[in-house]
């Protein structure tokens, strides 16, 4: 009896580590890749000193940041100030529990997987608001307010995009969503929704061109202005881990998860996890490419895009998709 619990516990911990450790390592390489790609876009060299081609740069940076002094402002609300980066980090890792990397490769294959992901990504705003409020300083507070309004606005259109996909699947389970794309990836019939989802994912992860919460030209560094050392590292890791999480969500909803593009011989012997990784890397490249290409939005433009363009359009598309599915009798089961 007690051994059973012990073994179950150990298996759960091993599964969690098997997901979290690769995610953290890929965060380090994502930071390196971002600096390298941005450098190439801007005709620079990028990091090239630490290790071959500068590939160990992120690890050197992490080491440097962690060994620095952790400064907690005397006017801050200390408990909330320390909790904020921890919450950001934990939430960006919690979502990985339901991501299916390949058939059966999932820590927890729950019925409401997509709702869980949506819930976890909507909680991400708390780390930012708490950081902004607890810092007791103007710039972080402005950053936090911007972030709260921005993330709530873009969640609405993300919700409608998810509903559109669910109408075509008939289940909230992420593995079933992937398996429903065996004939055609949803990115093709639902192309406009794919684009809206990608842009909303940029806003949800506070990435350029929507990084108003940390807008360095007006707000110093936004919500993490007062953070230093290890707590800054946690914010940084959290931001990139949630970027990879949103990319995986995009891949599962629209690019067929672990499925190969065509179910023909040389393609379908490649393991599913490789296809999944390749697709996630492609979406992450788009994230970085957008950062290197577009200027930052003004705040009222950001709000207008969310409420006056994406919301009506995605609402229309939900109605159109359901109408289409009912008329042609194509509703799943």
């Amino acid at each position, binding site marked *: 009896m007690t051994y059973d619990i012990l073994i179950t516990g150990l298996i759960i911990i091993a599964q969690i580590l098997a997901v979290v450790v690769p995610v953290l390592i890929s965060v380090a390489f994502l930071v390196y890749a971002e600096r390298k790609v941005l450098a190439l876009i801007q005709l620079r060299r990028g990091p090239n000193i630490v290790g071959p081609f500068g590939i160990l740069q992120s690890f050197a940076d992490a080491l440097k940041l962690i060994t620095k002094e952790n400064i907690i402002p005397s006017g801050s609300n200390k408990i909330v100030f320390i909790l904020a980066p921890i919450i950001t980090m934990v939430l960006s890792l919690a979502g990985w529990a339901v991501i299916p990397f390949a058939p059966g490769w999932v820590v927890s294959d729950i*019925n*409401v997987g997509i709702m869980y992901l949506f819930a976890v990504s*909507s*909680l991400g705003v*708390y780390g930012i608001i708490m950081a902004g409020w607890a810092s007791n300083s103007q710039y972080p507070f402005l950053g936090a307010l911007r972030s709260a309004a921005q993330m*709530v606005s873009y969640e609405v259109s993300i919700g409608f995009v998810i509903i559109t996909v669910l109408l075509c699947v008939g289940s*909230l389970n992420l593995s079933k969503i992937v398996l429903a794309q065996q004939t055609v990836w949803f990115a093709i019939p639902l192309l406009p929704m794919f684009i809206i989802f990608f842009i909303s994912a940029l806003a949800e992860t506070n990435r350029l061109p929507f990084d108003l919460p940390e807008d360095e030209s007006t707000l110093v560094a936004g919500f993490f202005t007062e953070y230093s050392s290890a707590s800054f590292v946690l914010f940084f890791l959290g931001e990139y881990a949630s970027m990879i999480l949103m990319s995986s969500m995009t891949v599962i909803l629209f690019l067929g998860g672990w499925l190969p593009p065509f179910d023909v011989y040389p393609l379908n012997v490649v393991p599913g996890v490789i296809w999944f990784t390749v697709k996630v890397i492609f979406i992450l490249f788009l994230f970085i490419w957008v950062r290197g290409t577009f200027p930052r939005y003004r705040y*009222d433009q950001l709000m207008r895009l969310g409420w006056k363009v994406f919301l009506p359009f995605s609402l229309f598309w939900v109605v159109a998709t359901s109408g289409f599915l009912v008329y042609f009798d194509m509703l799943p089961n």
Partner: protein
Amino acid sequence: MVLYSLTFYLFSSVAVLSALMVISAKNPVHSVLFLILSFVNASGLFVLLGAEFLAMILVVVYVGAVAVLFLFVVMMLDINFVKLREGFLQYLPFGALLGIVLVIELGILFLTDRSSNIYNNQTPLQPIVNEVENTKMIGQILYTEYFYLFQICGIILLVAMIGSITLTLRDKGGVKRQNIDSQNTVDASAAIEKKKVKLGEGI
């Protein structure tokens, strides 16, 4: 079994304790944060009951949206805590009355509803595994049996929304607005004017 009971006691005790902290915390922002913790634990309890859809909806709607706006407002307010505490004794009898009524109602519910299987069932709390996902079950009941009530709920929400917009929307004169279409159609010829300036004269 032991794991389920342990998680149940964890979630329920944290939920009750954080609910206590909501009303006893001095700082209103801390109160809201404890309220959020309480919501999250309540959704954990829903998961233990096998109502995973309700649990996720609770997190998405209440924690992800309502509480964010709540926190937003509380952070922005300039509250005088000393003044806020002054009326405490004055409102105490009323609050106590409300609490007592609620406790009596809950007691009546608990005592009379013994026949229902929730209380008689001696098996410890664990997820009820059904053939049909409970998202589908909710859908099948909500859109058939309770269709009219569901529609009425929607209309009530719409009325509340329109009401709050009409209460807050004031069309003051002299407000400068952004015209996005005109901003987007600006080209260099409209924005820049070339002039020949004579030396020593200016424009």
